[in-house]
């Protein structure tokens, strides 16, 4: 399954990808027919995980997305985002240098874990509760599906272009 041994990641590569996740989460989004928006933050997190591996993916996904929440007016969600997107990046990162079934399934687990962590976390938030968590379930699931498709697709395109 393991195709090649990767070299250690430099600190500035982690910072660069954190900025990518931060900017993409804050500014790249498309309107949906339902009236809401799909933002590309999850695409960037899955992509960063696949590029950097588990530790890089966890740091970049968690910190980049939490910073985007703080700067974008969603600071109330930032601790939960740190955890949810951190795990999303971590699980995606496990798929780095993997091929076949493992490569396709791990980012899927990553985005499902993100939806699950948000749902459970929001239930325990006094300002959101179960009702608010249910309200967030659909948009988060749309984010998860888009994040999975976009992240894996982007990684495939990027690898081909970079080669």
């Amino acid at each position, binding site marked *: 399954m393991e195709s090649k041994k990767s070299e250690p990641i430099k600190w500035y590569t982690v*910072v660069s990808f954190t900025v*990518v996740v931060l900017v993409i989460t804050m500014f790249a989004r498309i309107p949906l027919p339902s009236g809401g928006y799909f933002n590309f933050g999850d695409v960037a997190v899955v992509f960063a995980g696949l590029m950097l591996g588990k530790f890089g993916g966890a740091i970049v996904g968690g910190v980049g997305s939490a910073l985007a929440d703080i700067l974008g007016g969603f600071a109330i969600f930032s601790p939960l985002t740190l955890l949810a997107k951190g795990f999303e990046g971590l699980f995606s990162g496990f798929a780095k240098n993997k091929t076949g079934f493992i490569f396709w399934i791990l980012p899927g687990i990553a985005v499902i874990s993100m939806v699950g962590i948000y749902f459970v976390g929001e239930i325990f938030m*006094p300002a959101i509760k*179960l*009702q608010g968590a249910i309200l967030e379930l659909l948009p988060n699931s749309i984010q998860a599906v888009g994040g999975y498709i976009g992240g894996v697709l982007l990684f495939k395109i990027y690898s081909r272009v970079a080669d």
Partner: protein
Amino acid sequence: MLGGFLTTFISVIVLNYIINNNLPILSGLLILVVLLFYIFYGAKVFWKLAKFWIKFALFLIAVFVLFGIINCNGFERSCLTESFFNGSKTALILLNTVFILELYILSITIDDILSINLPIKYLKVLILMRTLMNQVLAKFENDKILFNIIPEFQIVHKSKLKNLKPMFLKNLIHIMTLTFFIKEQGEILGPLIDNRIIHTHKTKANGK
């Protein structure tokens, strides 16, 4: 900065866990926080933030009412009144928390963060992040204009279902372009920062 953080943290804890059942206090606090927002940051900044959160709070009340109607037992008052009351309390806690956090966050500048006496290994991360952010924000807007010139991506009705795919692809290409750019800049600036640290901090420590 630390004082502000502690005040905000304690306010949020008190709001969420101590006065979370008192509707008049929550309403009064919201009026006070909104007034402070208006005074310090003006109406434009407030409404930009409030637009999303007020809509979310109203949806939250609606879901509470819906839950109250479906799961109606054990309330002293009518189900509708009780669920509306609970929904309003939660919505007020949410709005107060969001605005209190934003009042603090908007008061912090990057210079405040850089002025904290952090070790150089953490400070260099902040410096690179700030530099990359400045570069990328200008590039992001330029790229957006360039992508909109490409015939396949000239989409008029953006919220139509058939246009989702080209818009999705357009954004993927945009992300890829940005990634190449930021990664390249990081690879240039990162070693330069490391180099400067070696030649200033280490030389100073050695007394040269």
